[in-house]
């Protein structure tokens, strides 16, 4: 919808459209902005979004209000935002679940992760890790692979849920190494971690933020981190690559808006987000969460998403998890 000002401009509306769009962008935002988080409050995505929303609100001069709309593996909120007006007042925390895995996982997804959105910025990346019960005999990834071959039905590895990126990493781990794996899904990382600590399941595929505290406390032992280099906070934790397994994966969260966001608003948002992310205090808090600040321009982030969709499609296929 055109703002009322545009109608007041009278007969020259159509001729004046581009300049009005510019005027609108410089005036934007005149109202509070809604930042839709497609997960329940309290998780990594939610925390990251709240940290960013504070800084962003201050820089834009309008409050950025976080709205949690969990449901259907983050696809519910994503579908809603895809249909919202591209006026810069409705933003979404796009993420690996709704924009990386869902396109292959859900057969009837109601949005296209690339075409239906204006992608603005990558906010946070958190590497995936394999952690084990401290009493578990395997010392490294090679041990895990060898042990798993001796087990009649493979080695049990827990994850936060079927179709989650953590689950897919287990599948890919099996594909790459030939290890025999038996996936044990949970409702979220918390219950899965409980069972690893209780020695119900020997290993777990997790994101670093939900494992970090348990790793520091020695409640679980890190087996491998799926990043290209070791993580500064966990210098003793070797990467998969160091152990001869080419596995790099991380969870990611970014900022997106409905498709057709005026370029002026996209540019402004991209600049302001970059400024917020450059803040040392925020980078410190992101590091505490176990993540690294993302730095991608709007087109680079859109390209990144397209790459993730292509990457996970064959893994979802192999996992056998597909939702009607």
């Amino acid at each position, binding site marked *: 919808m055109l703002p009322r000002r545009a109608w007041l401009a009278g007969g020259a509306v159509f001729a004046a459209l581009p300049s009005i769009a510019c005027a609108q962008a410089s005036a934007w935002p005149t109202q509070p902005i809604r930042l839709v988080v497609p997960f*329940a*409050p*309290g*998780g990594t995505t*939610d*925390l990251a979004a*709240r*940290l960013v929303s*504070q800084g962003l609100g201050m820089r834009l001069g309008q409050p950025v209000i*976080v*709205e*949690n*709309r*969990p*449901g*259907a*593996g983050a*696809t*519910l909120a994503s*579908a809603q935002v895809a249909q919202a007006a591209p006026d810069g007042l409705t933003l979404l925390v796009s993420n690996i679940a709704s924009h990386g895995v869902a396109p292959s*996982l859900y057969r*009837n997804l*109601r949005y296209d992760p690339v075409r239906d959105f204006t992608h603005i910025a990558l906010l946070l990346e958190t590497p995936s890790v394999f952690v084990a019960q401290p009493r578990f005999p395997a010392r490294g990834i090679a041990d895990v692979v060898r042990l798993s071959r001796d087990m*009649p*039905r493979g080695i*049990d590895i827990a994850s936060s*849920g*079927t*179709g989650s990126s953590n689950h897919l990493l287990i599948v890919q781990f099996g594909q790459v190494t030939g290890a025999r794996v*038996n996936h*044990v*899904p*949970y*409702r979220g990382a*918390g*219950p899965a*971690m*409980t*069972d690893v*600590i*209780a020695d*119900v*399941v020997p290993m777990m595929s997790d994101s670093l*933020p939900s494992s*970090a*505290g*348990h790793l*520091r*406390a*020695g*409640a679980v032992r890190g087996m491998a981190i799926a990043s290209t280099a070791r993580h500064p906070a966990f210098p003793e934790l070797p990467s998969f690559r160091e152990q001869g397994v080419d596995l790099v994966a991380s969870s990611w969260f970014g900022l997106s808006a409905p498709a057709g966001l005026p370029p002026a608003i996209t540019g402004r948002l991209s600049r302001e987000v970059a400024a917020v992310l450059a803040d040392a205090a925020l980078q410190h*808090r992101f590091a*505490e*969460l176990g993540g690294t600040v993302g730095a991608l321009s709007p087109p680079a982030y859109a390209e990144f998403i397209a790459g993730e969709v292509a990457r996970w499609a064959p893994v979802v296929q192999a996992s056998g*998890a*597909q*939702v*009607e």
Partner: protein
Amino acid sequence: MDILGNLAHGFSVALSFSNLLFALIGALIGTAIGVLPGIGPVATISLLLPITFGQPATTAIIMLAGIYYGAQYGGSTTAILLNLPGEISSVVTTLEGYKMARNGRAGAALATSALSSFFAGTVATVVVAGSGPLLTSVALSFGPADYFSLMLLGLIISAVLAQGSVIKSIGMVVFGVALGLVGTDVQTGQQRFTFGIPELSDGISFVALAMGMFGIAEIVLNLEKPEARSVLKTEVGSLWLTREEFRRATPSTLRGTLVGTVLGILPGGGAALSSFGSYMMERKVSKHRNLFGTGAIEGVAGPEAANNAAAQTSFIPLLTLGIPANAVMALMVGALIIQGIQPGPRMVEAQPDLFWGLIASMWIGNVMLLVINLPMIGMWVKLLQVPYKFLYPAILVFCCIGAYSVNNNVFDVYSTVLFAVFGYMCNKLKLEPAPMLIGFVLGPMMEEHLRRAMLLSRGDVMVFLERPISASMLAIGAIALIAMLLPNLRKGKEAALSG
């Protein structure tokens, strides 16, 4: 003893002016949102989360904990006065509490709820302080097979909850389990019974189900019968407990405290079992079990104590393992992480101020709630004297806001309406909603644990008998079933129900 020294340190932290102030603010906010039907602590805490960013970690967590307890207290108020439960624990409170209110004993029911909660909270705080780490190892000895057997036991005994026909009650439990299965299958990720509606993929909203079946259906029934509405305006009686009521409530409070303390420790859904576990116990062992269903004070005292004790001890997995037991705890973990504190086994040593300050403030929060709530009983009871034509639209509005606020989704408001219609039908057919809600909560957990146990045992059913905890639960369940069926066979159903 070291614990005394630690507790003293905790109190010195918690009794600082700002911490005391924020404990009070938290308790007040919590009570307020608890009283507003359906608006739960999750929505409130997530709104207040940004405020905590600028506070010291201890102050922040003390305030959030205050909201959590306050909501527990406040939730019982609406359950007793308006038959409106906001969570599974207050579902049980409606059973006897609302009946007491209708008998003109609303004040006594509210006082019982406040006093038994306070007592249980005090005991549980001492337990958390004294043996938290020890109890963690107990909780960790529960595997999926054990949880399954515990839930199964809960379901078997929940048939006792029925106040009418046992067959109908079993039917309702099974129907509740079926409703609980709606949503995404944890094992395969497939959607079940969702009819292609994305809003159903995470299951039916508990708040929508509970508010519809209890609160709103009750409003419809009240509107149907003008005389029922006037019952609410009858003499409210003495606000305080009579000596006789006090004597009856005391042993129930003690038993409820024990049940809640033990079950609250189990991270896999123990807290959900606590209040109706206590209710079942009271129906079986209390001296006045024949009064159950007509407003027995034991049925308020026991479950309220159990519920509050479990709310306290469910902090144990959070504080010692760093694993949140429910959505509110998950938010508290979030608040801590933002502050750069990772909850977990090392928190006791790394953050003694926070750990012991929180434990001390748990108790201080309970005292504050007692101080806030007891004088307010008179005011709440007066609420019932508000003409019904003003009261019920207000309740409906708050129910809608509450249903919406859980997931910020209008679909949940529609579900509430649907369940209100269903609840009304059930009332007409003399079908009890409480067993259905228990099936709804326990069914999916039971399925999850069953399938996980089977997945880990590679399909060997013997795992349920080989594990001692699981085997004992199953044995108790079998005995309960036989005890329930035997007199049935011999003397007919009535004897079984009254015995």
